[in-house]
């Protein structure tokens, strides 16, 4: 049923529909509303779960790990510094192949301190062995959250659902929450085969020496690659039951024949989508909305990039001293194409900088005028605000 909900509230209710047994979280802006809303569900008796209000994000991830390893569906959420504080645990969870879901309310990393949205936090842990799914709007955030549990539990790879902080989490908009019955049909009760159980006492988290560590990393890599199919399958099964899809690993808007394409992740896709409608007279363009960043959908991307001559890759983060993060990976896959597009890599909307709709025509103009591909630039830098040496 459609209702006007704040993004955080919607995500919280989606989590509740998944019937987690243990939720552990530590407050950090802009994730707080999610946890507050879950707490409210528990307080109102609408969700039977153990809510563990830990003393740090590090413990939040650890508690969730403990719970999931013990065979209970577990969930946590965080942002920014919190994600980094969890970092050590995140690697550990994925290495142990313990399924769980984490919502990252994306936020910039300090210093300087900044509570606003970009995606530097989830990018910083992109190699932690988690599946990362980015949401373009709150409906996707809800649907992806529910799908994430199934993906995690089928693949035994943890899933991070990335929801842009404030831009989505604090925005009220009409959202269709599936019914409990639908979610139950989609998501069977959690069963972890290697659960800690005194009747079946396994040892988890052993020490693996050089003789086998290479293989264990290979296995983990393979598991991530295999999860691609499960992401697609979960999305299509979800569509079958609930009637709505998130596009699997990626979606394309606009003309398939377009020679200009923009690739982006997260809420900026919505603005760009409207830009495409408003400024449709400009050029034929297609928008590639990348939902799965990990696993990185190499073949799906290669397919949608066929025939594209100019590709803009937008980032909400950067690798200082190198440039774009997503851009670099796209560039690398393009080298495997027969006629790769020229790739222009921009970071936009860092630390909450508004991404106005006008960005669309400006980008199109920039790439169509460019004589050389833009290796990497931070869009919208006000040069005069910079110290001389940094201009």
């Amino acid at each position, binding site marked *: 049923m459609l209702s*006007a909900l704040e993004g955080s509230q919607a995500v919280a209710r989606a989590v509740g529909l998944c019937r987690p047994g243990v939720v552990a979280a530590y407050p950090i802006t802009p994730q707080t509303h999610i946890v507050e809303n879950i707490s409210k569900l528990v307080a109102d008796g609408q969700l039977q779960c153990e809510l563990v209000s830990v003393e740090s994000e590090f413990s939040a991830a650890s508690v969730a790990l403990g719970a999931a390893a013990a065979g209970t569906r577990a969930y946590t959420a965080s942002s920014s510094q919190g994600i980094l504080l969890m970092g050590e645990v995140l690697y550990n969870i994925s290495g142990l192949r313990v399924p769980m879901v984490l919502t990252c309310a994306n936020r910039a990393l300090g210093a300087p301190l900044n*509570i606003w949205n970009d995606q530097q936090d989830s990018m910083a842990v992109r190699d932690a062995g988690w599946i990362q799914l980015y949401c373009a709007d709150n409906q996707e955030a809800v649907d992806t959250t529910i799908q994430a549990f199934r993906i995690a539990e089928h693949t035994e790879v943890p899933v991070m659902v990335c929801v842009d902080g*404030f831009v989505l989490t604090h925005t009220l908009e*009409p959202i269709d929450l599936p019914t409990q019955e639908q979610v139950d049909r989609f998501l069977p009760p959690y069963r972890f085969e290697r659960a800690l159980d005194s009747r079946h006492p396994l040892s988890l988290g052993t020490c693996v020496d050089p003789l086998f560590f290479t293989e264990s990393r290979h296995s983990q890599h393979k598991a991530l690659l295999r999860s691609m199919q499960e992401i697609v399958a979960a999305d299509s099964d979800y569509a079958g039951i609930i009637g709505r899809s998130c596009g699997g690993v990626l979606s394309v808007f606009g003309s398939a024949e377009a020679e200009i394409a923009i690739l982006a992740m997260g809420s*900026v896709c*919505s603005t760009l989508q409207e830009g495409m409608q408003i400024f449709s007279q400009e050029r034929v363009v297609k928008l590639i909305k990348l939902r799965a960043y990990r696993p990185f959908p190499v073949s799906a991307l290669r397919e949608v990039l066929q025939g594209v001559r100019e590709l803009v890759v937008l980032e909400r983060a950067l690798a200082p001293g190198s440039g774009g993060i997503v851009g670099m990976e796209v560039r690398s896959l393009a080298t495997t194409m027969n006629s790769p597009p020229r790739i222009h890599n921009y970071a936009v909307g860092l630390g*909450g900088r508004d991404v106005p709709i006008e960005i669309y025509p400006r980008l199109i103009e920039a790439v169509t005028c460019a004589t050389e591909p833009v290796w990497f630039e931070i869009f919208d830098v006000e040069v005069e605000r910079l110290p001389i040496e940094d201009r």
Partner: protein
Amino acid sequence: MIEIRIHGRGGQGNVVAAYLLASAAFEVGRYCQAFPNFGAERRGAPVMAFVRLDVRPILRRSQVRTPAFLIIQDPGLLNVAGVLDGLQERGGVLVNSSRSSEELSHQTGKTVVSFAATHLAMQITGKPLANVALLSAFASLTGLLPREALVKALSSRFKEDVLAKNLKLVDMIADRVPSKSWKEIADALST
């Protein structure tokens, strides 16, 4: 698309006003979007929130730069730089103030409707929060939101006594402002 910007101060229920406005619109079948200009400001500091209403799904997530309407929760905010920025030429400004609409229109050079919302809210709800009163006035001015929509929106947020008082406030405000004087603009933007 109707874009609205709400100015207030931390603690005045600015975001609530935005959410209520969007929710009420949702109740009459509009697409809506409401979000704060997310800040770290504390109680008393000037803040903003944005509302978009449309008959089509709203995609853009940028801030509202050219609002059709401004809702200003206290007259002091009129002195804050940028409050009136980007207001569409035909747009209207709803201000909580004891000064007259005319006086303020003259001062700002915009179409201003004002009334002493805090005073009324204080009388009815016992709390100096103008947001619901302003919302009711906005509904009356634009004719966008029938009473039932407001009631539904308020019911989802308030309960029992607080709800009753706020509903009373809503009803009391409706004829304090020139009803439907902004309806034309609103309708024009709604197609």
